């Protein structure tokens, strides 16, 4: 099997599994309990907080553990919105291709009276900092721009956007779920105020993540019922998951340069191979993207049938077609970078893992080419395109 869906989730690392087992087998006490057995769990929790803080250039007390990236996004936006409302500032700037955890929370805030400006991400899938600056108004309380896009992998000019926000006195949140552990993220240098992360995207477990909030940024609680996490997130902490997340992030950070170099080489080999397929196109900027992300559109075919036939060849991948999303519309990310519906349905995302080899990449290229050619052989759209009855888009 070639697992090429690491943007969906990753395999847990041995270090993460070991850390999790230790907490489950030895430190299974409640960190809120005062006896030593509970305090041992508390110590593991705080050690994890320190390890994570060290990786992102933050203070341990600024880290709040959550159930994952979606909860962190919800809490970041809700917190900034609550603060804005108190100050009479009810405008938020974000982008059209954010994760739904951000977009749906923004839609809910709009129903509550907030106004939202979603910035264009252009054909290359990269936000222009000057456009962020132009969108900021007197009543803007928050700018939220993802660090790297989850579908097309494009990395955003976070530091520049953060500097603009700082200058204008506006809070800046970034959904760094796809970036943390893969590319350098430093909260201080990148001028960030709020950051969301999820453990299972960097070889940690599912169901755990964190929200980092710069000291002095007040957080609103989404879950009431206890004093855990300084009263900002009630519920007994997921100590095994949190310890595993810290172990996974520490390892990912230590190997980041080495992994990125290998993945970038494999990514570029894969892109070069897939570009040989006629009437195909890479989605998103070719250089300014996550080391392991490849996303293509192939004209004349539909993504779900492509995925099923790749699955038959032992390849795990994903697509932004409507059929795979369960809705009538294809990926909002592909539409945001200007892909028309017809073409967006024929998309394929291959997100590589660190163990990928050149041989794997060549097998991926060969398999995708064969499957695309086969599906085109009985596609009525492809027939119209090749007969000249319709113009090619790609």
């Amino acid at each position: 099997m070639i697992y090429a869906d690491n943007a969906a989730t990753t395999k847990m690392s041995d270090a993460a599994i070991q850390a999790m087992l230790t907490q489950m087998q030895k430190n299974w006490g409640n960190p809120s309990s005062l006896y030593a057995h509970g305090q041992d769990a508390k110590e593991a929790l705080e050690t994890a907080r320190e390890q994570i803080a060290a990786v992102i250039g933050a203070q341990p007390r600024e880290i709040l553990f959550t159930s994952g990236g979606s909860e962190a996004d919800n809490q970041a936006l809700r917190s900034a919105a609550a603060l804005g409302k108190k100050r009479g500032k009810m405008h938020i700037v974000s982008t059209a291709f954010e994760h739904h955890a951000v977009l749906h929370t923004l839609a809910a805030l709009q129903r509550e009276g907030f106004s939202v400006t979603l910035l264009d991400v252009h054909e290359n899938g990269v936000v222009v900092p000057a456009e962020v600056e132009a969108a900021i108004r007197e009543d803007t309380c928050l700018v939220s721009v993802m660090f790297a896009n989850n579908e097309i992998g494009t990395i955003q000019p976070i530091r520049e956007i953060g500097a603009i926000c700082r200058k204008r006195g506006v809070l800046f949140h970034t959904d760094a779920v796809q970036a943390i552990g893969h590319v350098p993220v430093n909260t201080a240098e990148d001028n960030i105020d709020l950051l969301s992360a999820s453990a299972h995207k960097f070889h940690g477990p599912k169901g755990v993540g964190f929200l980092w909030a710069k000291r002095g940024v007040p957080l609103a609680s989404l879950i009431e019922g206890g004093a855990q996490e300084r009263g900002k997130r009630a519920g007994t902490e997921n100590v095994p998951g949190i310890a595993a997340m810290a172990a996974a992030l520490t390892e990912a950070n230590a190997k980041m340069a080495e992994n990125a170099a290998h993945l970038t080489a494999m990514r570029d080999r894969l892109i070069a191979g897939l570009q040989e397929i006629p009437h195909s196109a890479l989605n998103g900027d070719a250089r300014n993207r996550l080391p392991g992300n490849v996303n293509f559109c192939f004209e004349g075919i539909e993504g779900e049938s492509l995925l099923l036939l790749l699955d038959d060849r032992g390849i795990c991948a994903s697509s932004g077609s409507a059929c795979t999303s369960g809705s009538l519309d294809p990926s909002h990310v592909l539409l945001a970078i200007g892909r028309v519906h017809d073409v967006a349905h024929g998309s394929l995302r291959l997100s590589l893992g660190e163990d990928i080899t050149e041989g794997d990449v060549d097998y991926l290229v060969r398999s995708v080419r064969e499957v695309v050619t086969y599906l085109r052989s009985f596609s009525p759209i492809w027939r119209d395109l090749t007969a000249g009855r319709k113009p090619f888009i790609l």
Partner: protein
Amino acid sequence: MALYSEKVMDHFRNPRNVGVIEDADGVGEVGNAKCGDIMKMYLKIEGDVITDAKFETFGCGSAIASSSMATELIKGKPVADAMRLTNQAVTEALDGLPSHKIHCSVLAEEAIHAALEDYHRKTKSEDCP
């Protein structure tokens, strides 16, 4: 655990009656690229019997399987029987489809009916020049 039944996967992996009939007596095309599904059906009709059926489909696994199954269900059948083909019959023959994929069987039914209507239109104009 699989997304589709064995039958759907069989018809998806090995679709029956794929292709084009150049001198078809009826051709029907339904769906649109915007929604991600297009089915095109070609029928050869002799006397009152569908002697051959072929299809081309742009769409998901269940769209391809539904097209394949629909052509199997009407091949060799009288035109009147094919007119009565329903999406339920296609779905049942495929041992079911996930609820959000039922529209694929509806498209298959519509494509067959569109091809038959095309055939009726052509034969009518031949009868009354």
